[in-house]
């Protein structure tokens, strides 16, 4: 019997791992397409609208429509990066040159392990590893993200990648502190490091960044609302800096450094860097959803309770993915709306604005909670 339990457990766990990979990869592939389509719309262009599978184009109405939507573009891009010549420049440090893309990709994925992406499906909890130190694990892994980029810059042995890598490392470590401090008030309020507990708290007391619908309306949610909003704002901006997205894409600012740390990379290795960036965006969005926007809960129709049926479970996963997609849309939209920061402005914002602000925020949260109890 115990053996049966074990194999069953292992089977479902592997299923979850495969499912998470499949869903994240699909989101990554199509957020690249979304990025191209949205940028095209913003710049009054059409965006990718040609690529089609051989027979699909001849299906009436739907075929041409899907093609115009560019729905096959990610497939074509993936195939291209696989088939392109994979040449290695003469001057690179070969081992690191090969390792760097892999090292960029792995942490981006591994962060997702502790994120609860749903409540229950059957009797299975919809989180890969429900660690009681969830957020510490997340920050530990996020720190590893720097290595791939620094290594890529070093391994390329070329000036642009080197400068890009070094800029990126300074930027990422700076904003990591602001990011880490910004979430401390969240855990002061919740009193648990486990991310599932953070969601459970928000289901009961209202989302931290939007406390208007809750099972138990208390004055406390509103007193702490500004604190949570400041936390969220710092976290959001730091997430942009951590993922090297505009307005903080200094490491790869095209006009100065060509493509930054991945200038010397081509074909599949470049594709891994590219996917790593989008995967980081997915992870950052998921973190924001979990920490500030109630995770898989919605405050209507009993959707804030752990699911009792398969349909509810699926609905929760859908809600979670929907929220993540909204944040991905925000990432893309901001990229085409804001100009790039200067490097001194970037460091100034991180060290001299956000870190003091985050510290003050922690103090305010602590004092408010202290007075209450």
């Amino acid at each position, binding site marked *: 019997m115990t053996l049966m339990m074990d194999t069953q457990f292992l089977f479902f*766990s592997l299923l979850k791992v495969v499912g998470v990979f499949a869903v994240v990869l699909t989101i990554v592939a199509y957020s690249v397409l979304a990025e191209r389509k949205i940028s095209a719309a913003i710049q009054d262009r059409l965006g990718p609208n040609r690529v089609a599978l051989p027979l699909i184009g001849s299906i009436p109405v739907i075929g041409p429509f899907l093609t115009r939507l560019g729905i096959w573009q990610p497939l074509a891009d993936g195939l291209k990066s696989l088939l392109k010549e994979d040449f290695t420049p003469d001057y690179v440090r070969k081992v690191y040159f090969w390792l760097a893309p892999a090292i960029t990709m792995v942490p981006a994925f591994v962060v997702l392990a502790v994120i609860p992406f749903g409540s229950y499906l059957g009797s299975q909890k919809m989180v890969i590893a429900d660690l009681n130190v969830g957020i510490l694990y997340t920050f530990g892994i996020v720190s590893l993200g720097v290595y791939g980029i620094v290594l890529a810059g070093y391994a390329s042995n070329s000036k642009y990648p080197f400068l890009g890598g070094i800029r990126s490392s*300074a930027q990422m*470590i700076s904003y990591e502190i602001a990011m880490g401090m910004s979430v*401390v008030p969240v855990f002061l309020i919740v009193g648990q*490091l486990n991310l599932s507990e953070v969601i459970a708290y928000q289901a009961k007391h209202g989302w931290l960044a939007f406390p208007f619908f809750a099972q138990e309306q208390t004055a406390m949610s509103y007193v702490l609302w500004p604190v949570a909003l400041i936390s969220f704002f710092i976290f959001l901006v730091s997430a942009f800096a951590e993922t090297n997205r505009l307005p903080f894409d200094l490491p790869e600012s095209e006009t100065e450094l060509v493509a930054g740390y991945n200038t010397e990379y081509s074909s*599949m290795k470049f594709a891994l860097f590219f996917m790593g960036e989008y995967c980081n965006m997915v992870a950052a969005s998921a973190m924001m959803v979990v920490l500030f926007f109630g995770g898989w809960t919605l405050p209507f129709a009993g959707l804030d309770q752990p699911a009792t049926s398969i349909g509810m479970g699926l609905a929760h996963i859908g809600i979670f993915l929907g929220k993540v997609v909204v944040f991905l849309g925000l990432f893309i939209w901001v990229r085409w709306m804001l100009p790039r920061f200067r490097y001194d402005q970037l460091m100034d914002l991180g*060290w001299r604005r956000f870190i003091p602000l985050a510290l003050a925020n922690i103090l305010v949260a602590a004092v408010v909670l202290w007075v209450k109890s």
Partner: protein
Amino acid sequence: MPDQPYLLLVIFILAAIGFALLPLGVAALWAKFFSPAKPGPDKNATYECGLVSKGDAWVQFKSEYYLYGIIFLIFDVEVIFLMPFAVAFGGLSVGAFIAMMVFILLLVEGLAWAWVKGVLTWK
């Protein structure tokens, strides 16, 4: 068994590593059998906007990067210390609360010192 999150974590990490190495391997195999590399002196040169590159990549860079690195180390450790404090906050005694505030103030002092010294000003 159903309560072993770390086992699952290991599985997930292995899967992620496999996932990162697999495309590299497949691409390398494809290149080996179907599209062998055709290197050339220009293709393999260091990229520098089409000009012939001068000197190597060991250029001097600002020492400020190091300073930021050092300050980062201190504050990152601080953040890790703040997490358990945040969780245990509900049941803290007055003494523990004050001790933690002193800890935070010491670090604020460090930040203020670096600020006054001009370390945090990017020149």
